[in-house]
């Protein structure tokens, strides 16, 4: 079994109003020195019966086809074997 941990993040330059709001909240709570907050998505996908090589290829395809929108998002992932 291989577990893929996938991170989808907004591209640099794409405004993140949710992140801005959280930044404001952190400042209101007295956390100083917060320069920037960016909010993204974290997904865990578990794959059965695949080689590491296969998993890399398949998860990459999943990200490109559905999990991330290339217009606004970047993605990266890590694989863990169990």
């Amino acid at each position, binding site marked *: 079994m291989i577990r893929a941990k996938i991170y989808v993040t907004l591209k640099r330059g*794409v*405004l993140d*109003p*949710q992140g801005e*709001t959280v930044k404001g909240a952190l400042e209101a709570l007295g956390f100083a020195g917060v320069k920037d907050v960016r909010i993204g998505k974290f997904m865990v996908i578990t794959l059965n019966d695949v080689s590491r090589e296969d998993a890399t290829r398949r998860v990459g395809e999943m990200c490109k086809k*559905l*999990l991330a*929108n290339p*217009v*606004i998002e970047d993605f990266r992932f890590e694989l863990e074997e169990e």
Partner: protein
Amino acid sequence: MRFGIIVFPGSNCELDCQWVLQSVLGQQAKLIWHREKALSDCDCLILPGGFAHGDYLRTGAIARFSPIMAAVEDHARRGGVVLGICNGFQILCEAGLLPGVLLRNTSVNFICRPVHIRVETTETPFTATCAQGQVLRMPINHNEGRYYADDETLARLQAHNQVIFRYVTAAGEATEQANPNGSLGNIAGVCNERRNVLGVMPHPERASEELLGSASGLSLFESILNYGRAASPTHR
């Protein structure tokens, strides 16, 4: 003219569209479930507003892979008219039938109120009966309405005259105050390069009778009818 209105799980404006087309304009308008694979006898397709597939992952991200979408893409490729309203606009962007994407409103609020939009060009099947610069009043009802595209795409949109509507004041000025959601360049609607696919965030179907406070949305549907009368778009 024969209209097909695509219904996804979570669509909620399909009956409003059907009402306008059938009862106000006297046209044929059938509802088409998203699991259908073929479209028969439709001149114009409408992707209505709502929250298709719960807007999970991203708005439109799941809906664009619904079985019916291959037929929608085929219809568009053959030059057939496609109108995406609100969530329909988001789905068409995800499907790659329109450039850009709709993101979370800068205010991080769901916004439901009437806005003014200006007709930027009448050279589309959707605005041909409008006047250039005409200001229309219709409601928006969205959480993700902030139009975004990279600089290169924006330049291409401008070069090919594909920005069809912009948010403006009642007097027709595209100011920052008139921009409800932070859309780049106050963009409220864009078409594809071939000009047969339009996405618009405000709801023309909810502004098609004076009883509803405005009938200026009717001009979009009337333009489509005019276009249909001039030539059968599916055979172009």
